[in-house]
Structure formats: structure tokens, C-alpha cells
């Protein structure tokens, strides 16, 4: 067995230890530690991905070499390694790019707690991606919820505390449903490890035994994770939450945390229910309808907003809808589109939040569209980064957004006829709506205000933010133009899932 297969376990344990250590470090040291940790995690997962893609295998890693039923397992395949590397990279960039905003907006004596929470989020992300045990998944879902709540409430204003409460309530509803589903599944199969569960569920499904409990547990698990990731009609907390938090937190929450839940759901669909059972029981139709409704509802919500952060948050709800629509479409092309959309959104949304933070600072610390007039001139780099990310959201060519919309279109044409027309219709309508609200924002940024009250003030660029912004843009353009290798890797990964 190659040594690099130990990396996931080492990284998860290292992240958990670091979070404890960071709590007694000064803010600067905690920041460097946290940034270093996510950089190391990116590199280690990239090495692992290279190994897994080359050998074309998915390995079950026994912790402490204890076999089933005593031990706990990780499952390491190309897709898991790719997504972990990607999530760690985005986390690194969020922490790097959001540094300046954090320093300004959070009380100095509390800043090191932010990195405690960031380390915990990273541990939870890695564990959710790699775990092969349903109950371990549940525990890390809760760790993820608690630590992302910490990322929210680090800034103590009335709005952030209220937003954290709402976030917690919806998250707890989701994890309650998920827990009940897991318990039901455990009571009819007697297993918690994914491969054993899959075997038992396949057997139960074919014999028709315990049909109702099995069906209800599949529904509970899917709905629980959907609620947690903010699927329509449970998307309303997003606007408050992302609107009130500091930009780095909004980026981490929308780009990574909600995506990790969806990735975990995909893992459960493939490794626990089995694709055949999942698509036979019909729950995917519900996800499809809610996804499509979420796209429209999110876009309309974004169009009506007058606050740039809340607008981006509503657009997040729409993007989550795309992912669920892909899952509902078909088990092959639809899932591929959903996976690509997860990556595209994880690169684009944090870039939007970070740039919006800098733009609103340039506009005299206001999030209102009215005050953002001409902010693109005051902070040129943030303006460019925002514009490019907005292009990707709309789906202009050479960006990841284009490829993901293209994939959804292909998935629609590939699937059943009943879903073809509504999917294409939703895609068209949402593209128009996306264009409307993002074009409106970008035009506003580059629209010079009246000459008399306009002073040409240049905000000095911050090196950390500029670095993060450049990497975000580079990844977006690179994967948007040379998407074929990534798509091949995704397909290869899905086959091994």
C-alpha cells in the first residue's frame, strides 16, 4: 500500500489538533498555521489524487487495521481526492483573500478564534468527503454546522447573531432528519459502514422486505441533506446569513460547506443506496423539481435585492438548485454536470463575496447598490475580479460557468423526454435572469457618479487579496477553457464512486 493513502487520516487528525492549538496562539500565528494547514492539505490531496487517478482504484482504508465490524473506514478514490484538494485550495484562498476584511471587522482579541473554526471546518470537510461510515458522517456534519456557525458569529452585530440562529435552526432540522434516516437504516440493516449497507439495501430492495422503512429512510436522508445545503424552499436563511457575515465566511459557507453536504449526499447515493435503488424509488424527481424551482426562486430573489451581498446569496440558492437539478436528471451525465457545477460554484462564489467586500469598502462601507456607483474605478482589481466571476455566473464562454451550463444542457438532451423541455426552459430563463442582475451590478460598478460628488479615490490594493483573486480568476479561466481533462477525470471518478 502506498504511503500517500495515509494522508487523509493524518490531515483530519492534524486539523482537529490544530484547532485546539490555535485557540491558545496569537492571531497572527494562528493565521499562518491555518493557511499552512490548508496549503499542505491541498498539496497532499493533489498527490493522493495523482496516485488514485494513475492506479485507477478506490481504496478502502482501515483505520488501525481493524476490519469490519470493529473498525472505522475511509474510502479513497480519485473523486474524493480531487474534491478534497479543491476544497482545501478554496479554503486557503478564502482565508488569504478575506484576511484584510477580517482584520478590520472582527475584534482583535477574537481573531484567533476564527482560525480555530476554519481548522475545524477543514477537518469536517475532509472527513465528509473521505468517510466510509454513515454515523461518522453524521458526527462530522454536526461539527461542520457548529464550526460554520462560529465563522458566522465571530463578528458580533445583531444581524450576524440573528443570522447564526436562523442558520442553526435550519441546519439542526436538516441534521435531525438525517439522523432519523440513519437510525431507521441501521435498524433494518444492522450496518453503518457504506459497503455493507449497500449490500443489505440491494437485498432488501430486491426482496421487497421492509419496503416502507427503507423508502422513508432514503427520503429522510436526502431531504435532511438537501435542507442543510439550502435547497428550495429552505433557501431563505441564505440571504440573511451570507448578507451579514464577513466575506471570507460567506465564501466558505456558500462555496464549501453547502457543497460538502451535497458531495456527501452523492456519496450516500452511490455508496449506500446504490444508483439503481435511488433512481428507482423516485426521490430524485422531488430533488429535480425543487432544484428547478430553486433556480427560478433564487434568481427572482436576487433580482429584487438592493444589497450586493444578499443578491449574491440568492444567486447561491439558484446555483444549489442547478446541482440538485443535475442529480435529478440522470445518474450519468446529470451527476457529471452536478459535480462540475460544485467545482465551478466553489471557485466563483467566494471570489464574488471577497470582491464584493472590497468593493463595498471602496464605496464607503456600504452594501447598497446606490452607493456602489463607480466603485469599480475606486478599487480596480476588485472590480475586475467581480466582473469575471459575474461572467462565470452568467455562463459566458471561457469560464467554468459556461461549461457547467453546457453540461446541464447536454444532460437535458440525454435524459428522458419528460424532463428535456422543462430543463431547457429553466436553463434559458435562469440565464436571462442571471444576466439581468449581474449585468445590472457590473454596469453600476463602472458607471461614473455625478461629477460634483465624485472624488477619484483609489483604494490601495492588498497583496493577500490580490493574490487570492488572481488565483481564483486563473483557475476559473483555466478550467473553463481546458475543461476536457477535468471532465474525463470526473467521469473516471464517477465510475469508481
Amino acid at each position: 500500500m502506498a504511503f500517500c493513502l495515509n494522508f487523509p487520516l493524518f490531515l483530519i487528525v492534524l486539523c482537529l489538533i490544530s484547532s485546539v492549538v490555535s485557540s491558545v496562539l496569537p492571531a497572527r500565528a494562528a493565521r499562518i498555521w491555518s493557511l499552512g494547514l490548508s496549503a499542505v492539505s491541498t498539496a497532499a490531496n493533489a498527490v493522493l489524487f495523482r496516485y488514485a487517478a494513475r492506479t485507477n482504484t478506490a481504496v478502502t482504508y482501515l483505520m488501525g487495521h481493524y476490519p469490519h465490524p470493529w473498525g472505522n473506514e475511509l474510502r479513497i478514490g480519485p473523486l474524493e481526492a480531487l474534491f478534497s484538494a479543491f476544497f482545501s485550495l478554496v479554503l486557503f484562498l478564502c482565508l488569504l483573500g478575506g484576511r484584510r476584511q477580517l482584520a478590520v471587522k472582527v475584534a482583535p482579541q477574537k481573531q484567533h478564534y476564527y482560525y480555530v473554526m476554519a481548522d475545524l471546518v477543514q477537518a469536517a470537510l475532509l472527513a465528509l468527503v473521505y468517510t466510509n461510515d454513515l454515523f461518522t458522517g453524521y458526527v462530522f456534519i454536526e461539527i461542520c454546522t457548529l464550526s460554520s456557525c462560529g465563522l458566522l458569529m465571530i463578528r458580533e452585530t445583531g444581524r450576524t447573531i440573528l443570522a447564526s440562529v436562523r442558520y442553526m435552526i435550519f441546519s439542526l432540522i436538516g441534521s435531525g432528519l438525517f439522523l432519523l434516516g440513519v437510525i431507521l437504516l441501521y435498524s433494518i440493516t444492522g450496518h453503518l459502514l457504506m459497503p455493507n449497507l449497500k449490500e443489505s439495501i440491494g437485498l432488501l430492495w430486491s426482496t421487497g422486505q421492509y419496503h416502507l422503512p427503507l423508502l422513508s429512510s432514503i427520503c429522510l436522508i436526502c431531504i435532511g441533506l438537501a435542507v442543510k445545503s439550502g435547497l428550495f424552499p429552505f433557501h431563505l436563511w441564505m440571504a440573511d446569513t451570507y448578507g451579514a457575515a464577513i466575506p471570507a465566511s460567506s465564501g466558505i459557507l456558500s462555496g464549501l460547506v453547502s457543497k460538502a453536504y451535497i458531495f456527501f449526499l452523492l456519496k450516500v447515493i452511490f455508496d449506500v443506496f446504490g444508483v439503481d435503488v435511488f433512481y428507482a424509488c423516485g426521490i430524485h424527481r422531488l430533488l429535480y423539481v425543487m432544484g428547478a424551482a430553486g433556480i427560478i426562486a433564487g434568481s427572482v430573489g436576487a433580482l429584487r435585492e438592493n444589497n450586493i451581498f444578499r443578491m449574491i446569496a440568492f444567486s447561491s440558492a439558484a446555483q444549489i438548485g442547478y446541482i440538485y437539478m443535475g442529480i435529478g436528471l440522470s445518474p450519468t451525465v446529470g451527476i457529471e454536470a452536478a459535480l462540475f457545477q460544485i467545482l465551478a460554484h466553489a471557485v466563483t462564489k467566494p471570489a464574488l463575496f471577497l470582491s464584493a467586500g472590497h468593493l463595498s469598502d471602496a464605496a464607503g462601507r456600504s452594501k447598497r447598490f446606490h452607493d456602489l456607483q463607480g466603485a469599480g474605478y475606486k478599487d480596480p482589481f476588485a472590480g475586475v475580479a467581480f466582473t469575471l466571476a459575474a461572467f462565470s455566473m452568467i455562463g459566458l464562454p471561457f469560464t467554468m460557468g459556461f461549461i457547467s451550463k453546457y453540461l446541464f444542457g447536454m444532460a437535458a438532451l440525454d435524459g428522458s423526454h419528460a424532463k428535456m423541455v422543462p430543463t431547457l426552459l429553466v436553463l434559458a430563463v435562469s440565464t436571462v435572469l442571471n444576466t439581468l442582475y449581474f449585468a445590472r451590478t457590473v454596469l453600476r460598478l463602472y458607471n461614473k457618479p455625478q461629477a460634483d460628488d465624485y472624488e477619484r479615490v483609489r483604494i490601495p490594493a492588498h497583496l493577500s487579496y490580490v493574490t487570492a483573486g488572481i488565483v481564483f480568476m486563473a483557475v476559473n479561466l483555466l478550467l473553463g477553457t481546458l475543461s476536457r481533462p477535468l471532465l474525463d477525470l470526473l467521469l473516471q471518478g464517477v465510475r469508481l464512486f
Partner: protein
Amino acid sequence: MLQLLWESRIQAVAVLLFAVGFTTLLLHRNLIKKVIGLNIMDTAAYLFLTSIGYIPGRLSPIVADGVTDMEAYVNPLPAGLVLTGIVVSVSVTAVMLSLTLRLYRRYHTLNLDEIYRLVYAEQEDV
């Protein structure tokens, strides 16, 4: 049907309690009652797990009098899961209560709608 319901009465009650806690958490406007609802919901899930994990007539899985026959004991895993779950729900409850405390100190009310109104009435601190 009725007999089946009677045989699994504890599980039925657990699901009922789960629904009660769930609706309270979702719909009640009072923050403390929301936390109570959360606890009812989680406890109901643990009740379900405990009740299916116990087999009448068997002992807790600790070898005491040299009896090593597997049939004499219950499976320790459900109890272990319940313990893990309790730890999780205790920490979640603590966080929720501390957030409630913060909001109460600031706005002197526990009604979520009222807090919502007060928060959005004040100037946003960007």
C-alpha cells in the same frame, strides 16, 4: 396492523415525539421553546435507537460471571451511538442557548419575529 403497532409502540411514540420536537423547532417563535423542541427531537431519535437496541432478557455487554456466549448479551453499538449523539446534541444546545442569551441581552425579548423587526430597524453595521 394494530398488533404491529402495539409491538412497536415505543418506536411509534418515538416518531411521534420526533414530529412534536421538529414542528416546535421549526414553527415556534420563542427561542427557548425552539431549543426545547430541538432537545425533544434529538431525544426521540435516541429513544428509537435505544429501544431497537435492547432485547428483553439479555444483559448489558460486560462479561461478569464468565458467560462468554454471545446470545446472553445485547449489541453494544446502539448504546454507543446514543452516547455519541448525546454529546453532539449537548454541544448544539449549548451553542443555541448562548446565541439566545446574546440576543436576549441585546433586544430584551425571546420572540424571533420581534427580534427580527428590531434587528432590521437598526442601521446596518457594515
